[in-house]
C-alpha cells in the first residue's frame, strides 16, 4: 500500500480539531484517507491507582473528576457499585434526585456536543447558539448543586443536597425554554442544506459493525442498536419512569445528531416526570465507613454511552481495586473503521461524533525510546525520576521547593 503519492498527516497530539491530546496519524491519497493509526494515552492521570490510596468518600470526589462533562455519571456509577457491596438500599427520593441531575447533565452534554459538531464542520453559528442555551441548564445545575461542573451531589447512601420548590419551578421553566430551542435545532438539522450535506453518509457504521466493534451510547443507537443501560439494566429511578429508547437507522453522523437531538427531547420529558413524581422522605441513609469485602460491577448510561465501574473492597475503608471503563474506550474502536475511505475534511466531525472524552479513557503512558525507536512500557518511578532530571537539565530544581513545602506542612 506504499504509494508515492501518499501523504502522512498527523492530527494531534496538538491540533485545533482536538480538545484533548490524542494522536491520529492519517495516510492520505489526495483528500481520501487510506489508513488511520490512532494512539491514545497522552493524558493518563493514574486515577484508578490513586483511588486505592484514598477512602471511599475521598474516592467519590476523585472519581467525579475523571470527566468534566459527565462527572455525575462517573460518581453515580462508582457509588452504585459501593452501595451494592455494602448492601445499602438508598431512599427513593435520593434515586429520583440522582436521575434528575443525571438528565440535566445529559442535556448540557448533548447541547455541548451539538455546538462542537457545528464547529467541526465550520458552522460556528450553531456553536454560539447551543452554548448560549447550554448556559440555562448550567445555571440550573449551579443553583441546585452549587457547581457548574463536578456537582458533588452524590454520597455513599444517597445524595447530599435536597431541592426545594423554587428549584422545581426554575427547572420546569428552563425545560420549556430548552424544549422550544431544541425543536428549532431539530428544524435546522432537517432543513439546512450544507449541514445535511456535511453530516449525511459520513462516518458510516453499519448495524453489524456497531455490534462487532462494541459501540455504545448514541453511536450505537444511531446504527439501530437498541442499547441503553437505562432500559436494559435500569438503575436509580429509571425503572419507574416512562421514556422512549431512541434509535435511528441512518448509521452515519447525521443519525448520531438526530439521536442526540431526540434524546434531548426525551430528557426534558424525564426531568418533568421526575419532578412531578418526586417522592417525599429522607435523601440519605447512613453508610458504614468500612465497606465489607466484596466486589461489584456497576453500569450507567452516561451521555456518551455505557459507563462501567468495577470496585473490589477488602473490608477496610479503602478499596482494593477500582476499574473504570469510560464510554469513549468502547467507541474509539469504531472510529478507525469509520474514518477509512473517508475524506480528510470529515475526520474532525467523525471523531467528534462519538463525543470523545479521551482523558477519561486514557490508561497508560507509552514511551518511545529515542535510540531504538521502540515503544517501551516503563515504571512510574522511572517516569518520576525522568521528570525530575528533565527539569533539572532545564535549570529548574524543585527539591528546595519541596523541602520548604514539607517544613511548612510540618509546622
Amino acid at each position, binding site marked *: 500500500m506504499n504509494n508515492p503519492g501518499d*501523504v*502522512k*498527516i*498527523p*492530527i494531534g497530539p496538538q*491540533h*485545533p*480539531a482536538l480538545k484533548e491530546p490524542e494522536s491520529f496519524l492519517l495516510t*492520505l491519497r489526495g*483528500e481520501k484517507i487510506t489508513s488511520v493509526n490512532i494512539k491514545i494515552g497522552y493524558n493518563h492521570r493514574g486515577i484508578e491507582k490513586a483511588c486505592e490510596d484514598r477512602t471511599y468518600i475521598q474516592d467519590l470526589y476523585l472519581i467525579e473528576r475523571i470527566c468534566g462533562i459527565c462527572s455525575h455519571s462517573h460518581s453515580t456509577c462508582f457509588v452504585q457499585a459501593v452501595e451494592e457491596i455494602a448492601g445499602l438500599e438508598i431512599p427513593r427520593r435520593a434515586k429520583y434526585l440522582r436521575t434528575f441531575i443525571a438528565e440535566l447533565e445529559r442535556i448540557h452534554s448533548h447541547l455541548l456536543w451539538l455546538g462542537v459538531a*457545528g*464547529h*467541526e*464542520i*465550520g*458552522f*460556528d*453559528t*450553531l456553536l*454560539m*447558539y447551543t452554548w*448560549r442555551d447550554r448556559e440555562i441548564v448550567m445555571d440550573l445545575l449551579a443553583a441546585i448543586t452549587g457547581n457548574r461542573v463536578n456537582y458533588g451531589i452524590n454520597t455513599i447512601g444517597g445524595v447530599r443536597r435536597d431541592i426545594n420548590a423554587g428549584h422545581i419551578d426554575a427547572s420546569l421553566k428552563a425545560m420549556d425554554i430548552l424544549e422550544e430551542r431544541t425543536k428549532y435545532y431539530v428544524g435546522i438539522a432537517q432543513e*439546512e442544506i*450544507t*449541514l445535511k*450535506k*456535511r453530516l449525511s453518509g459520513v462516518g458510516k457504521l453499519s448495524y453489524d459493525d456497531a455490534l462487532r466493534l462494541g459501540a455504545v451510547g448514541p453511536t450505537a443507537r444511531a446504527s439501530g442498536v437498541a442499547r441503553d443501560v437505562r432500559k436494559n439494566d435500569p438503575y436509580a429511578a429509571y425503572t419507574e419512569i416512562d421514556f422512549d429508547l431512541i434509535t435511528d437507522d441512518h448509521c452515519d453522523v447525521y443519525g448520531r445528531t438526530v439521536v442526540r437531538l431526540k434524546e434531548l427531547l426525551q430528557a426534558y420529558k424525564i426531568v418533568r416526570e421526575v419532578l412531578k413524581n418526586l417522592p417525599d422522605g429522607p435523601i440519605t441513609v447512613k453508610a458504614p465507613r468500612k465497606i465489607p469485602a466484596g466486589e461489584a460491577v456497576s453500569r450507567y448510561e452516561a451521555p456518551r454511552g455505557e459507563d462501567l465501574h468495577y470496585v473490589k473492597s477488602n473490608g477496610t475503608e479503602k478499596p482494593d481495586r477500582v476499574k473504570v471503563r469510560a464510554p469513549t474506550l468502547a467507541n474509539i474502536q469504531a472510529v478507525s473503521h469509520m474514518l477509512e475511505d473517508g*475524506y*480528510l*475534511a*470529515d*475526520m*474532525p466531525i467523525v471523531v467528534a461524533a462519538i463525543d470523545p472524552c479521551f482523558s477519561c479513557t486514557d490508561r497508560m503512558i507509552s514511551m518511545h525510546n529515542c535510540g531504538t525507536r521502540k515503544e517501551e512500557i516503563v515504571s512510574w518511578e522511572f517516569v518520576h525520576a525522568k521528570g525530575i532530571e528533565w527539569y533539572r537539565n532545564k535549570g529548574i530544581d524543585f527539591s528546595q521547593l519541596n523541602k520548604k513545602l514539607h517544613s511548612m506542612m510540618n509546622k
Partner: protein
Amino acid sequence: MGKELFNILIFPGLLFLCVFGLLAEFVDRKLYARLQNRMGPPWFQPLADFIKLLGKEDVIPTEADTAVFKLMPVVALSAAVAAFFYIPLWGTHALYYFSGDIIVVLYLLLVPTLCFFLGGWYSRSVYSMIGAVRSLTQLFAYEVPLFMCILAASLLANTWSLSEMAVFYGRHPGYWIFNSLGFVIAFISLLGKLEKVPFDIPEAETEIVAGSFTEYSGRLFAFFRMTIDVELVVGASLIAAVFLPFGLGVGQQLGFVVYLLKVFLLMALISLSRTIFARLRIDQMINLCWKYLAPLAFLQVLISLIIKWVLVK
C-alpha cells in the same frame, strides 16, 4: 507625477484600501458576531490586530524556501491593490482604463490566490501543502463561472473595458437587470475566491490548522491578513461595478456614498452566508461549481447574447 503618486499610494490607492479593508473586516466581524448573538469586537480591533502582528517575530521554518516565503505576502498585497485602479468606483471611469482592462483585473485578482498557493507550498508543512493544493483546486472550480458571468455583462456592453461598461450601463439604466443571474453566480464565486464560508475549505481550521498560512507569523502574516481584507474590498467593488451599475453619474460626493453602500451591502451578504452555512467539502464545492454554477453562467452568456441581438442594435 505627484498626483499619480498620491493616487497610487494614498487615495484611492494603498492607504485608502488598507483603511477600507480594515473597516470592512470590522463590519464583517461585528455583523457576524451580532448575528450569532455575541458582542463582537470594537471598531479598532482589526487595526489593533494588524499592529500587534507587525510587532511580532517573523518565524520562518528552516525547511521553507525563504525568498518565496517572504515575497509572497507582498506580491499578493500589491496585486490586489493594483487591480483596484482599473475598477470604476464612484464615477463612470476608473483611475486608469484601456480596452481590455477586464482581463487585467481578473488576472490581478488571480495573483493573491496563486500567492497563497506558493506561500503555502514553500512552507513545507503538511497542513500548508494540503491547504495550498486546496486553494488551487478551488481556484479551478470558481474561476470559470466568475469569468463567464463578467464576460456575459461585457458582451452586452460590447466592450473589454470596465470603464466603458460603466458608461454603457449608465446610458441604459435598466439593463443591469438582465445580468441578475450572473450577479448571483458571481457572488457565490466571489465567496470561493475570498475563501469565505461555505468555501473556506483551504483554511479549514479544524482539519488543516490554518491551511496555507499555518507557518506564517508576525509581519508576513499581517500582510497576508491585509491582502485578504483588501481582496474583499476589491472583489466586492468589482462585483458592484459590473452588476450593480447605478448611481454612477450623481457627482463625486454622493457617488462615493453610493459606492460605500454597495460594498457594504455585499459585505453584509458575505457575513450572512458565513452565519447560515456550514463549510462544504472540497469535492462538494467542485461539484457545485461545475454541475450548477458553470452551466448557469453559460445560460447567462446566452441570455446576454439574445438580449444584445434583440435590444442593442
